[in-house]
């Protein structure tokens, strides 16, 4: 009986420790630094724009990141290009249809090929990318930097940690129902995406 109680207590203690090590990072950045840039090749000039309306959370154990999970959300309305006519077309029904498909998401399902060096590392992040209502499973190479205790440097009223994620990958617009097979002489099928985001995990 005594041995069973001891085993139960030990298991509970290990579970508590395991959960305690997991941290949830919130990627809604009040400073507006988090961004995703996108590039499409075009005859006159490369179309370059940014998306700034980023939110979502990722729960991760910085010491054991393989079991990370969470979702990064981009508000489609915040996609911006400097040419106003181009922006209207991009937001319009034939392209992203942002009134109908308000969110672009990346749901993290697993992390593999982790290489750590101090507080930085690289890994392959597997997840489901959803654009214009169409979801595809992708594996994206990412660089991650864990900044313990640095949240206060950005937000003096708070204490906690920061997690910086950088990832570059390419998608084909045709695979997400964006004018498939059309206008490829004017705008390339491939879209280069570059995500740079920092999440905050406040602590008491």
């Amino acid at each position, binding site marked *: 009986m005594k041995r069973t109680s001891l085993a139960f207590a030990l298991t509970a203690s290990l579970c508590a420790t395991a959960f305690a090590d997991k941290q949830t990072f919130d990627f809604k950045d009040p*400073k*507006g*630094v*988090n*961004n995703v*840039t996108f590039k499409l090749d075009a005859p*006159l*000039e490369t179309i*370059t724009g*940014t998306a*700034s309306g980023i939110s979502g959370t990722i729960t991760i154990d910085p010491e054991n990141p393989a079991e990370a999970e969470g979702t990064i959300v981009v508000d489609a309305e915040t996609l*911006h290009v*400097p*040419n*106003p006519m*181009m922006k209207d077309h991009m937001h319009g029904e034939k392209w992203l249809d942002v009134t109908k498909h308000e969110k672009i998401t990346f749901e993290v399902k697993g992390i593999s090929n982790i290489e750590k060096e101090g507080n930085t590392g690289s890994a392959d992040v597997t997840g489901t990318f959803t654009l214009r209502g169409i979801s595809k499973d992708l594996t994206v190479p990412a660089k991650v*930097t864990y*900044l313990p205790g*640095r949240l206060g*440097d*950005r937000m003096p009223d708070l204490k906690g940690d*920061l997690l*910086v994620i*950088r990832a570059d990958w390419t998608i084909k617009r045709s695979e997400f129902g964006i004018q498939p097979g059309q206008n490829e002489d004017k705008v390339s099928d491939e879209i280069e995406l570059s995500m*740079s*985001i*920092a999440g905050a995990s406040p602590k008491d």
Partner: protein
Amino acid sequence: MVIRGFALLLLVLTLLGWGYLGSNLGWTKTSVATTRTDPITDISYTEYESRFVPGVEFLAIGIAGAVVIFAATLFIPLTKPKSKSS
């Protein structure tokens, strides 16, 4: 003669305006991107400043307008106003 002068003025203003506002060989922009870096996270991000930068379509419309106005004058008969005889 006045119309040809107007065509020339339109051409000069188009070229000067396009050159002064950035000589942009891309499409017209109404905002200009500036890249900044967050000192804590080292993330590079873009800030947009509202500014009109005319592009090649602005140049094309200005030059085409001047050419059309000048060409139109070639089809207008040069008639001298008749002097009124008392």
